[in-house]
């Protein structure tokens, strides 16, 4: 149970960064934290005690494996997370070039 609670705490820390921080890069880091927390939670749910990684090494070996389905889902999610992070960071670069600041309060004040 404790590893699951660790993942939930990581998600809550990311939420804290997203909601309370006013720097755009800190907000992007908060998004990354939430993503890591969710990925790790999936990998922990599929873990089986004293089992092997789901790779068949010989035809007659016993099929005592961890759950492969969460791993397949998370593999997709990790790569998509990289794509969203890259788009977020390029938007941040553009916003800085236009407003010369990363403070979201300043950006809200400067119109046009």
């Amino acid at each position: 149970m404790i590893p699951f609670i660790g993942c939930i705490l990581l998600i809550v820390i990311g939420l804290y960064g997203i909601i309370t921080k006013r720097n755009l890069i800190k907000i992007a880091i908060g998004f990354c934290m939430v993503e890591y927390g969710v990925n790790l939670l999936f990998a922990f749910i599929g873990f089986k005690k004293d089992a092997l990684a789901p790779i068949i090494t010989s035809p007659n070996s016993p099929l005592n494996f961890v759950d492969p389905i969460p791993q397949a889902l998370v593999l997709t999610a990790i790569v998509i997370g990289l794509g969203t992070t890259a788009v977020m960071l390029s938007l941040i670069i553009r916003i800085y070039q236009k407003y010369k600041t990363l403070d979201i309060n300043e950006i809200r004040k400067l119109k046009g």
Partner: protein
Amino acid sequence: MIEIYLLVIAMLAAAIVAIEIKDLLASAVSMGIVGFSVAIMFILVQAPDLAIVQIVVEILTVVFFAATILRTTHTDTTIQKGIQREGIFPVIAFFIFGTLVTVLAIYALKDLPRFGMPIMKVAEHYIVHGLNQTGATNIVAAIILDYRGYDTFGEAVVLFTSVLGVLTILRVKGRK
């Protein structure tokens, strides 16, 4: 088991440092610590494919963050001492959302199987018949490339779209 507990504690500490520190480059490096502890934990829960992908993606993420910080500013100027008037509302919002997420997560954790004993009804079919049906010895590869191939195709489309998006946003001058 003790390694996983220690890594979880290190990860949470690095996450708090990454959110709170004033220097943005140090913040990106702390985020790298979180990502690499996640990769080590993937190895400990017997997910080598995930660990490989996580290491590559983590390196790329830290490089992207470093490039962004080098093009913008190094210090977080929004951190100030004491509580300002405009800083109260986000803190209240965080407490409401944070308690909501925590309470709902505790309810959800009650219904989950215990750590180390997953329910493997669907996975049983993939494990027993995967080698005969797909010919792949790595069951994760069999799932992502054969049973759920359309999912992976969609993932490639999303990645391509994000590359197009980054190139469009960062293009220096537009066409006339």
